[in-house]
């Protein structure tokens, strides 16, 4: 009965689909289609610069229409492929008022964003942006810390104030991290489902066991919800909605727990394979968890998120369009 809704439309604009495709092709070409190739890929300046050349970071720094939606789509894809480096953090850093942002956008300098005393990618970054209650300041990297997520964590001390708006940086940080994390979770579900379709046990495909299939289906369901929340948060940032940061924080909490659920289901699906160093799950699941725990943390979101529940579908929060 009737066609689709026109005012509410989840289909991505053609340019975003194009971006998504070009990031996918880039990742498959440079990281390899095979998970085994991706897993061991360390951060590399060359790879980072090539990624930057896709224009994703540069776009995140503009106020082009739907720029953050594009950033979100790009971060999802890079997360899906486990692209090494401060992807989400760079998208957030675009709003931090860095003096050398152009070089960061071009992939020549590396920027990261965090809070507290330990920051992911700080061991490699040229620019560290710290979100503090008093606003933004630059961070000074101290000792590197080896972590299971292998995201170049370092101790960080506070430096000079930065001009950008902390609220905006935080909103983009949460949104982009939600996208990256959700993408990573989806990758884990996909490879686990693939394994479950092909591997046989007790005379049946593994995926015919409800104990295997259901946790993966639940993770998929959660990830699908989280993906729409992250995209909605990006649109809210683009539309300068006053509560955009809250929606972004909600999206990050959603993506983080969905991805952790996906990681757990994938670990279980792969059994012993799932815990191998060269195994398909561990490298990415540890990064997902690391991103959840590092400040500003998901726990912090639970403590501060406004207890509203209407932000996605409330017509009064979204712009008005004329029907075509």
């Amino acid at each position: 009965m009737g066609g689709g809704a026109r005012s509410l439309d989840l289909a991505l604009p053609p340019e975003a689909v194009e971006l998504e495709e070009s990031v996918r092709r880039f990742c498959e070409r440079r990281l390899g289609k095979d998970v085994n190739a991706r897993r061991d890929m360390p951060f590399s300046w060359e790879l980072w610069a090539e990624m930057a050349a896709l224009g994703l970071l540069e776009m995140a720094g503009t106020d082009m229409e739907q720029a953050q939606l594009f950033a979100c789509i790009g971060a999802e894809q890079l997360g899906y492929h486990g692209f090494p480096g401060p992807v989400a953090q760079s998208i957030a850093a675009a709003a931090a008022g860095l003096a050398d942002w152009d070089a960061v956008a071009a992939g020549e300098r590396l920027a990261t964003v965090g809070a507290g005393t330990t920051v992911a990618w700080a061991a490699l970054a040229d620019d560290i942006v710290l979100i503090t209650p008093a606003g933004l300041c630059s961070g000074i990297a101290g000792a590197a810390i080896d972590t299971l997520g292998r995201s170049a964590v370092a101790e960080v001390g506070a430096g000079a104030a930065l001009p950008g708006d902390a609220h905006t940086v935080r909103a983009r940080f949460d949104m982009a991290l939600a996208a990256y994390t959700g993408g990573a979770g989806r990758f884990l579900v996909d490879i686990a489902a693939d394994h479950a379709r092909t591997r046989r046990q007790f005379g049946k495909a593994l995926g015919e066991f409800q104990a295997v299939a259901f946790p993966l289906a639940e993770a998929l369901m959660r990830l699908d919800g989280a993906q729409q929340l992250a995209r909605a948060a990006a649109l809210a940032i683009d539309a300068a909605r006053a509560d955009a940061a809250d929606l972004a924080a909600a999206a990050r909490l959603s993506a983080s727990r969905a991805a952790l659920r996906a990681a757990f289901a994938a670990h279980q699906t792969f059994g012993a394979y799932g815990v191998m160093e060269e195994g398909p799950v561990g490298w990415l699941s540890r990064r997902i968890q690391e991103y959840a725990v590092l400040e500003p943390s998901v726990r912090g979101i639970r403590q501060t998120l406004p207890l509203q529940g209407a932000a996605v579908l409330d017509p009064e929060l979204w712009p008005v369009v004329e029907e075509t």
Partner: protein
Amino acid sequence: MDLELTSDQRAIHDAIVQMVSNHMDVPRSGATLKPVEYCYADQLDRDLAEGEFFSLALTEGCGALEAALLVYETGRSPLVLETAGAAFIGPLLTGRDLPRPVAVARLEDLTRAVRFLDRARTLIVDLGDDVAVLSTDGLAVEPIHSMFAYPLGRLMTLPDFTAAERLGAAAVPRLRRLWRVGLALETAAALQAAVDFTTAYVKDRLVFGRPVGSYQAVQHRLSADIQRVRAVYWLALKAAWSGGDQDAALAALYAQQAITPINYDTHQFNGALGMTLEHTLHFWTFRLRLLQGEMGGARTQAAATVAATWAGA
């Protein structure tokens, strides 16, 4: 260590089980739509009293464990009977048998809802810094109608505790310990009964040409549930045996945390029929729901567990 009942304990256990099994019939509400709130096991109460089972805790050669068996075994019936207060908490706290039923409550809950209060003849109150034991004669009790499958009551006005028997500050931790164990025993019993009931149902009920219980999604959840149930049982018995703060808090904590998943799983697997008041399942479900909130709920037990384990240092 010996985790089997001694032959004396076995004899007591079997006698209780036999008596309980004589009183398992629940009057049906039929098509009247009048919900059965609870069915009190009056006859079982009389039978057990006649056999002096309520005095097990103070009987020579018996003690807390034997009384715990009584609380557990009677708790498996869909009919409700007050045993935790009368046979376990009361005698072990005061060293004497108290007029039954015995209601136990925190001061702050007295005017809200207290299990058994509308039938109780003795009320034990945790005053925070003291314990009061008083007869309910002359107390202004209002029965509370709920679907929670227990008799419930509340006090219209607080009594004069200065006139009541007071056990002193040292009795407070003792009461809480015993209360937690009683709570865990009652919970263990209702959980076991609900899971047993559900297990029997899913073996028979067919869906898509197979028994419901042959689906792995059902099997695994019920299996995880039975692990929880057995854990509650053993934690409760160990706590009854040891009388330790930590054991009691752990048992109550594990018990209260096990309720939510088991409530949902048992109802999910009993399907639509499990939702009707003509089914027996809801008696345990509602009881468990009430037990879950007792003594401040799992969070209070968690705090007590931490305090009993890692205080100081």
